[in-house]
């Protein structure tokens, strides 16, 4: 390269050496404290759920086909639905507040994931699993709270 370009190249690299690591550290510090939901690899299948279930289970008063059980003594949950869903876009939330009938997801509520249609799904919850709060089943299509149940998973 000719000298002006080499000088420019040198300035660019000097700036990058400072900016890029700072940006990376900022990104790591800005990570949300609450866990991002993802499939629990140890409990991905229905069989493994049963073989690792801890016995703790949460049920719902209206949607009696739906239950949430803890995967062993880990922070994973397995949610099972044994009946057909009659609402569109049914989601499972965890929220620290006590929801009313007109409840809508807030910034403090946590979207866990889809409620399965006649089947089971597993999610990794992290430490939030034992922090109280309420499980909410919510239809995004109708913007309606369908059911709720207190989180009673123990430490």
């Amino acid at each position, binding site marked *: 390269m000719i000298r002006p370009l080499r000088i420019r190249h040198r300035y660019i690299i000097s700036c990058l*050496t400072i*900016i890029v690591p700072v940006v990376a550290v900022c990104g790591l510090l*800005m990570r949300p404290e609450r866990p*991002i939901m993802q*499939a629990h690899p140890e409990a*991905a299948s229905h069989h493994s759920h049963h073989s690792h279930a801890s016995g703790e289970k949460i049920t719902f008063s209206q949607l009696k086909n739906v239950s949430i059980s803890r995967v062993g003594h880990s922070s994973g949950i397995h949610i099972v639905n044994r009946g057909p869903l009659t609402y569109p876009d049914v989601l499972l939330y965890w929220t620290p507040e006590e929801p009313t009938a007109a409840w809508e997801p807030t910034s403090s509520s946590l979207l866990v994931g889809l409620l399965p249609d006649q089947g089971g799904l597993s999610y990794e919850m992290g430490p939030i699993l034992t922090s109280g709060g309420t499980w909410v089943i919510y239809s995004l299509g109708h913007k309606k709270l369908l059911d709720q149940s207190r989180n009673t998973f123990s430490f």
Partner: protein
Amino acid sequence: MSVTYHAVGWSTFKKRYDLILWLGIVLFLVVFCGVSLFLFPKVTLEILLIRAFGSAAFLLLHIILCIGPLARLHRHFLPLLYNRRHMGVSLFILALLHGFLSWITYHAGGDLNPFVSLIVSDAGPGISRFPFQIFGVMALVILFLMAATSHDFWLVNLTAPFWKAMHMLVYAAYAFLVVHVVFGAIQAETHGILTGLVGGGMVVVLGLHLVSGWREHKPDNQPLDSRLDQGFIEACRVADIPENRARIVSIAGERVAIFKYDGKVCAVSNVCQHQNGPLGEGKIVHGCITCPWHGYQYLPETGASPPPFVEKIPIFKVKIQNGIVHISALPEMPGTYVEPASIEMEGI
């Protein structure tokens, strides 16, 4: 090297290079998808492809950025440099696939216009509440510009210095992509391996550039006045120049390549007219100085390309005294005939 433009200047070497490149890309995609399916069996096809193409593009960008400094540090890496533009175009294709699939998957199914959604969706309670997708788009635009202008037509018409300066935007693209990954994927995937890989890549890319830059900084900044003697400057020992190759010296920051061939020594600008490649890292082939990057050739006596080519580079007067090569501090006009210094006449 060609007098006319071709879409791709294929040669056996370039075909082999591209074959290895794309075999490597396909192998990476297959291994990535296999491992992902093993670890996350419920992952959907579109998410799997988005992750695979994105990871492949980011890895390829790291490789591309490392080639330059590696070639500076050791000539064994020079062959990687010859066809780096094909690697850049491949990078753009992978990035485009990643971007297009992400756009369709996350923005095409809602009420909002997909383009509007792309801009405003990060403002809500998304992954990081930081507009990481915009940084991905900006990087993609830069990669497109670079891929679209990678043809020699643009290189000639934009001129090599402007073209080279424009292609330095790759560093901006790298910075944007680090932001895109750190505020995107790493916000959701908190596993230490991913963070370690991104951090390690950063250390390697920036570290190699800093080391190679440091090695070249000192000779580039030597003052000229103290070394001048009747318009000539002491450059190096004849014995230090390998046969049919060059030694690169710096005069007031500009580099000069001093070649030894057939019992003679000549000195030309180290900057190739084609893409500003380092001629001094090339060699004499069939009596011509040959650029290591793309094979552009110049006659050592004039600095002009052999007919029908028209490229010319500045050339320097040379004399040998007591086994030491001295070169003129100021170059002759490009294409001027300058008698090479004879090693035998000096009795070396």
